[in-house]
């Protein structure tokens, strides 16, 4: 099958959607399909052979922050050329509502179009204003995919219609086979002597995410830390992610600051080893999550998970069966649950066990097959993707369009 994938965000900037598209493309190439990814990228960025650059994304203020988007005459022309040269059986557009390549591709193409909705942002003012334009473009999508039941619900509420839920994929074995790193493990885990207890009790708690992004929830974890350390003084908190480290520990009493270790940005391999090493992974995110891929990664690596009870997280954790949930933004509840889990190796082993069974449904072998099912459903009996001549409107209708 010839598959065209449209990525709305810059390939140069690492992000969840970009990683998802990279893994998806590589999975399909591995199965012998022909894949081309159209993505915004700087001209001097080295790109994998399957990525076609749609030009540099321009930073513009959009929806309350500065977003790097592709639009305008040149980008539209590149999209049309890519569609024309690719002769795809199906195109898969990610985030079709962002005013970037996704929307442009939607306008320019006809034929089997699959779209994945990643975010579940509350409806923005811009989207209401552009509703009529958006609706006309979104009507062309033959199959909509939402990454979680929560994302599907917001999609149905805001845009109408329906979508199938296919979660984001993770290479489970990559995480499951990673080698733990002794300096990230607790003493008990290193010597594999279970138990502990008493005043010497400790354990390592892991957190991955932007330090200076409050929605990732590090401040909540910092508020809970004194109580955790009071109960288990040898606990260490390991934080991986970008941001201002000094600012992050400001609210913490000076004598406790040494219990927090910052690792900075870590690579994929290090992330897997990190998750294999910690005794407890905490995801205190306060909102803005539509899926929670990090929880799936943590479960793949066999880390017991404690997460805030966001809708998306509750779903990934099977309503609390595959990992524990605490009341969102409640530092006391987080501290109580963390202390209880660190003191109970039996419960952690149980979570580890359940997590690694539960997580199989997020493996690429399952998720990729489901996405391929969607492709096959929409291409059955339909013509291949082509540039939509009706989209040029006036010229075509008056017979003035050039070939």
């Amino acid at each position, binding site marked *: 099958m010839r598959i065209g994938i449209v990525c709305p965000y810059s390939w140069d900037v690492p992000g969840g959607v970009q990683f998802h598209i990279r893994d998806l493309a590589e999975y399909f190439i591995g199965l012998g399909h022909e894949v081309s990814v159209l993505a915004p990228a700087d001209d001097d960025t080295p790109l994998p052979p399957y990525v076609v650059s749609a030009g540099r994304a321009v930073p513009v203020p959009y929806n309350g922050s500065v977003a790097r988007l592709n639009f305008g005459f040149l980008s539209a022309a590149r999209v049309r050329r890519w569609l024309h040269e690719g002769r795809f059986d199906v195109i898969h557009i990610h985030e079709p509502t962002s005013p970037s390549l996704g929307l442009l591709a939607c306008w320019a193409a006809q034929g089997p179009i699959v779209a994945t909705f990643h975010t579940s942002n509350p409806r923005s003012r811009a989207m209401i204003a552009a509703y009529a334009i958006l609706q006309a473009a979104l009507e062309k999508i033959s199959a909509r995919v939402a990454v979680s039941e929560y994302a599907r619900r917001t999609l149905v509420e805001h845009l109408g219609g329906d979508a199938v839920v296919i979660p984001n994929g993770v290479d489970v074995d990559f995480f499951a086979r990673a080698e733990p790193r002794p300096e990230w493990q607790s003493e008990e885990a290193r010597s594999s002597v279970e138990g502990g207890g008493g005043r010497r009790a400790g354990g390592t708690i892991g957190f991955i995410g932007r330090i200076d992004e409050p929605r990732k929830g590090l401040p909540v974890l910092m508020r809970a830390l004194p109580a955790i350390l009071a109960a288990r003084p040898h606990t260490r908190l390991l934080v991986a992610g970008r941001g201002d480290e000094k600012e992050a520990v400001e609210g913490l009493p000076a004598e406790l600051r040494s219990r927090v270790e910052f690792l900075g940005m870590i690579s994929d391999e290090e992330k897997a080893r990190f998750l294999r090493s910690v005794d407890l992974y905490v995801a205190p995110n306060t909102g803005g999550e539509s899926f929670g891929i990090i929880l799936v990664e943590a479960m793949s690596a066999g880390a017991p998970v404690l997460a805030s009870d966001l809708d998306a997280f509750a779903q990934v954790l099977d309503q609390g069966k595959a990992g524990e949930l605490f009341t969102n933004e409640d530092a006391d509840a987080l501290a109580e649950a963390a202390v209880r889990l660190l003191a109970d190796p039996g419960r952690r082993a149980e979570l580890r066990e359940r997590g690694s069974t539960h997580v199989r449904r997020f493996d690429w072998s399952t998720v990729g097959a489901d996405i391929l*099912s969607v492709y096959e459903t929409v291409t059955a009996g339909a013509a291949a993707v082509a540039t939509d001549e009706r989209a040029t409107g006036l010229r075509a209708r008056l017979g003035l369009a050039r070939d």
Partner: protein
Amino acid sequence: MTPTLIWILVALVAVGLYLSWTAGRLDRLHARIDAARAALDAQLLRRASVTQELATSGVLDPAASIVLYEAAHAARQAEEDQREVAESELSQALRAVFAEVQQVEEVREAPGGEETARELTEAVRRVPMARRFHNDAVGAARRLREHRKVRWFRLAGHAPFPMSFEMDDEPPAALADRSA
């Protein structure tokens, strides 16, 4: 006098273009519904065929075989207005037979059973998918057709009002379990 006339003319042309664009949109939606309906038909037929194959293969016990054969046969032969009911009954029959994981294991162990089990799993996953895509297209076309401009100017022409396909398509638990 002439400028007014020109403005009226411009306005008329603009309205005409807008209506023509809307008619194009509607046309595209109807084409999408046709494609989605064809895909749904194909998936339903595939599911009924695999079920029938399984029922006549002798892998299952006689009672289960008869139940599945009856349901699959009825689903394939149903008249258009009976189809939703017949396909729902096939879903129920499949759920009754494949309620336990052991039953699926039994099919897998038979010669060629691995293949059949995979085909059936795929079919029961794809029917709800195809149905959702179909009903999504129907919903979009309905919303547009209920709009004043479409009703007043009869932009939909003689195309029949699109109907969604309503059925019970819940897959059997033993086949839908993704964690295995």
